[in-house]
C-alpha cells in the first residue's frame, strides 16, 4: 500500500548470483557425481577457492555467504572434491596472523591441496610435537597440508602431510562421492611458520573453524536436497502407473509439497544465519547458529533422500540410478561435524 517499498540488490549480491549461476552451469555440464580428477582442476582454474577470501588477500570478498553458495552447488551436483575442507583451511589462514598468509593462500587456491577434518579430531600437543588422530579428512592422500585444531583449542596450525610420523588411512564410506581418510600423527614436529593461532586466539579461530564447517555441511545439504527433490518430481511426472503419471496421485503430491516446504525452511535458516553472523563466526551466538543450520539442513536432506528413495520405487534401489548417491551423501552429512547438535543448541539457549 505504501509507495516507499523499494529494494535494490547490492553489487556484491548481483556478483554472487552471477558466480553461482556460472558454477551451476559448469557443474551441470560435467554431470552428477563426477570424480575429483575432473572437478578439482575446474575448482582451482575458476578461482572458486577464492570466493570467500578478502580482497586484500586477492579474493572475491564474498565471505561465508559466498563460499556457502558454492558448497550448495557442489552438493547439488554431488561433486567429489575437497572443496569444503580446503575453503575451511584457507579461511583459517586468512584469519591468522601468519606473515606469509598471502603466499600460502595463493599456493592452496591454485593447485596444491590443503585439507581439514569434517568431523571430530583427537589431537594433542606435548613438547611442540603433535600426536593423535583426525577423522573424516577429505583427499588427505593428495593434500600437502592439513589444518589441525589441537584439543582444548590451545593451538591451530597447518601440518605437512609429507613427513615422518604421519599415517594416512583411506576410510571408504557408503557415500562414494567423498574420499575420506583418517590421519594419525605420532610425535610430529610443529612447523612454527605454519602456526595460525595459539592461546586465546586459537580458541577464537577453532570456534570459527567449526562454525564454518557446520555452515558448509548445511549448504551442501540444502543444495543436494533441492536437486534431489527436483529429480524426484521429474521422475513422478514421467513415470506412469495404472495408466496415469505418478505426479497426478495426490498422496505423492502432498509428500513432495511437504519436502519442498522443509527444504525452504532449511534454506531460509541457513541464509538468515549467514546474513546475521556476517564475518563474526566465533562467538557463542554464531556457533549456535551454525549448529542450528547444520542440524536442520542435514536432517531435512536425510528426510528428503529417504522419501525420494521410496517415491522412486524399484528404480531408486538400483546402483545405476543416482537416487542412492544423494541418500548416502545425506546420511554421511548427518554424521559429519561434531557433538550432539540438538543438545548443543538447547544448551546454548538455556545457558
Amino acid at each position: 500500500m505504501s509507495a516507499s517499498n523499494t529494494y535494490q540488490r547490492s553489487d556484491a549480491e548481483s556478483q554472487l548470483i552471477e558466480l553461482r549461476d556460472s558454477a551451476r552451469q559448469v557443474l551441470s555440464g560435467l554431470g552428477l557425481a563426477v570424480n575429483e580428477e575432473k572437478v578439482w582442476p575446474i575448482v582451482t582454474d575458476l578461482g572458486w577457492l577464492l570466493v570467500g577470501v578478502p580482497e586484500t588477500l586477492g579474493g572475491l570478498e564474498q565471505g561465508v555467504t559466498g563460499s556457502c553458495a558454492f558448497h550448495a552447488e557442489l552438493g547439488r551436483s554431488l561433486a567429489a572434491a575437497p572443496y569444503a575442507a580446503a575453503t575451511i583451511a584457507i579461511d583459517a589462514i586468512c584469519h591468522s596472523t601468519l606473515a606469509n598468509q598471502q603466499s600460502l593462500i595463493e599456493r592452496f587456491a591454485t593447485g596444491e591441496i590443503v585439507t581439514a577434518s569434517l568431523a571430530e579430531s583427537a589431537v594433542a600437543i606435548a613438547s611442540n610435537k603433535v600426536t593423535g588422530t583426525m577423522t573424516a579428512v577429505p583427499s588427505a592422500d593428495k593434500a600437502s597440508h592439513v589444518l589441525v585444531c589441537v584439543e582444548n583449542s590451545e593451538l591451530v596450525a597447518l601440518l605437512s602431510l609429507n613427513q615422518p610420523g604421519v599415517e594416512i588411512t583411506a576410510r571408504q564410506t557408503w557415500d562414494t562421492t567423498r574420499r575420506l581418510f583418517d590421519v594419525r600423527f605420532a610425535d610430529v614436529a610443529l612447523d612454527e611458520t605454519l602456526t595460525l593461532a595459539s592461546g586465546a586466539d586459537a580458541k577464537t579461530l577453532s570456534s570459527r573453524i567449526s562454525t564454518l564447517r557446520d555452515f558448509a555441511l548445511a549448504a551442501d545439504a540444502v543444495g543436494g536436497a533441492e536437486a534431489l527433490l527436483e529429480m524426484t518430481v521429474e521422475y513422478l511426472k514421467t513415470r506412469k502407473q495404472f495408466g496415469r503419471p505418478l505426479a497426478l496421485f495426490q498422496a505423492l503430491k502432498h509428500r513432495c509439497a511437504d519436502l519442498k516446504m522443509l527444504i525452504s525452511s532449511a534454506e531460509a535458516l541457513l541464509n538468515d544465519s549467514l546474513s546475521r553472523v556476517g564475518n563474526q563466526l566465533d562467538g557463542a551466538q554464531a556457533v549456535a547458529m551454525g549448529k542450528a543450520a547444520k542440524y536442520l539442513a542435514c536432517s531435512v536432506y536425510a528426510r528428503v533422500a529417504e522419501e525420494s528413495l521410496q517415491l522412486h520405487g524399484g528404480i531408486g534401489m538400483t546402483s545405476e540410478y543416482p537416487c542412492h548417491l544423494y541418500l548416502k551423501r545425506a546420511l554421511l552429512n548427518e554424521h559429519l561435524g561434531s557433538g550432539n547438535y540438538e543438545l548443543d543448541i538447547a544448551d546454548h539457549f538455556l545457558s
Partner: protein
Amino acid sequence: MNSTVDSNNLREEVRAWLTQNVPQDWRQAMTGTDQDAFVKAQRDWFNKLVAAGYATPHWPEGWPGGGRSLADQKIIYEETARADAPRLILFFVALYHSACTLMEWGTQEQKEKYLPGILKGEIWCQGFSEPNAGSDLASVKTRAELKGDRYVINGQKTWSTMAQYADKCLLLTRTGKSEPPQGGLTYLLLDMKAKGVSVRPISQITGDDEFAEIFFDDVEVLVEDRVGKDGEGWAVAQSTLSSERGLTLVELTQRMRYSLAKVAEVMRERGRASDPAIRKELGALIAKVNASCALADQYLLKRISGTEAAGDASIVKLNYARTLREFTKLGMSISGLQGQYFEDFTRGGSQETGNWTVDFMNSYNWSIAGGSDEIQRNIIAERMLLMPREPKNWQLS
C-alpha cells in the same frame, strides 16, 4: 540518509514507547474475565497505538504514522512481539482488510465514509467463509439480489473472526447465476446493525469463541456500498486477503521465538530442565522456530522486492502451522498431567494463552483456517513444483 541508521532509530523509538505503554497487567485483565473486559482491554490498547501512530504505519502518508515502508512496519511488529504486547486481534480486519480494500478499490465517498471510523475504533469482520465450503472460496452461495438501488441478501457466513463484536462487515456475495464459480461474486460493505442480520458465536473446543456465524434474512445494502463492480468480487476479495502482505506471519513467528523462553520455564517448573531427551527436543524445536522466522522474514523481503513466486506464501503458512504444532505440543507434553487440568487462559490470546493445552488446540486454527494445510500442499505441488492438477471433471465413478 542511511536506511540502517533510520531503522535503528525507529526500533529504539518503538522499543522505548512500548516499555512505557504496554499495560503490565494485560494478561491478567484478559484471563478468566468476561467478554466486556476483553473488549475494553483491546480498545484501550488500540487507542494508544493509534495515538502513537503504530496502528496504521501501512496507511498512506497523511494518516497517523502512515507512509512507512514494509521494512519499517516489520520493525514495529518485531518490537511488539518482543515486548509481549497484546495482539490487536479485534481490530485487525478493520486496520488491514477493510482499509487496504478501500484504499485499492473504494470510491472517494467510500473512503471518506469508512476510513475515519476505523481509526475511531469501529470493529470490522470478514464475511467470506460459508458452511460446507471449507477452503473453497469460489463456492460462495450467499445470494445478493439487486432490487433498484439496493441488494437484498440471504444466506449464511461462518468462521468470521470476532463477528459478534463487529460494527461492519466485508461481505462476499453471489449475484451472478451461470458464470464460472469465481465469476458472479460481488463485494459489499455491510452494517452489522442492519435489519435481518443475526450473529451466533461459535463455541470452540477450547471454550473460547473467537469466531461466529452470521445469518442474513433479507438484509438490504445500498448499491453505493458495493466495492468494485457487480461480478468483480473475486478480484476485490483477493486484495483483501493479501492486504497484510506477510506481516502477520512475521509477527507470529517472532512471537513464537520469544515464547521459546516459556518452554524453558515449563521445563524448570516440571523438574525436566536437565532431562536430555527433552533438551534434545528443545534443541530441534529452536532450529525449526528460527527457520520459521527466517522464512517469514524472507517472504516479506520478496514482497518488498516484488520477487514473490507462486506458492511462496503457502510454504510460509504450512511451515508456520507445523512448527507451531510442534512448539505447543512440546510445551503441553512437558506440562505432564498438570497440563491436562483445566485452567483459565488469556482470552483471544491465540498462541499465547498462558495454557499449553489451549495453545496446542488453537494451533489447529492455523492448519485449518485461511486455506488448510491440505490446500497449501496442493498449491505448492501444482503451482511451484508444477505437478499436474487433478482433472476438473473428476467425479466418483
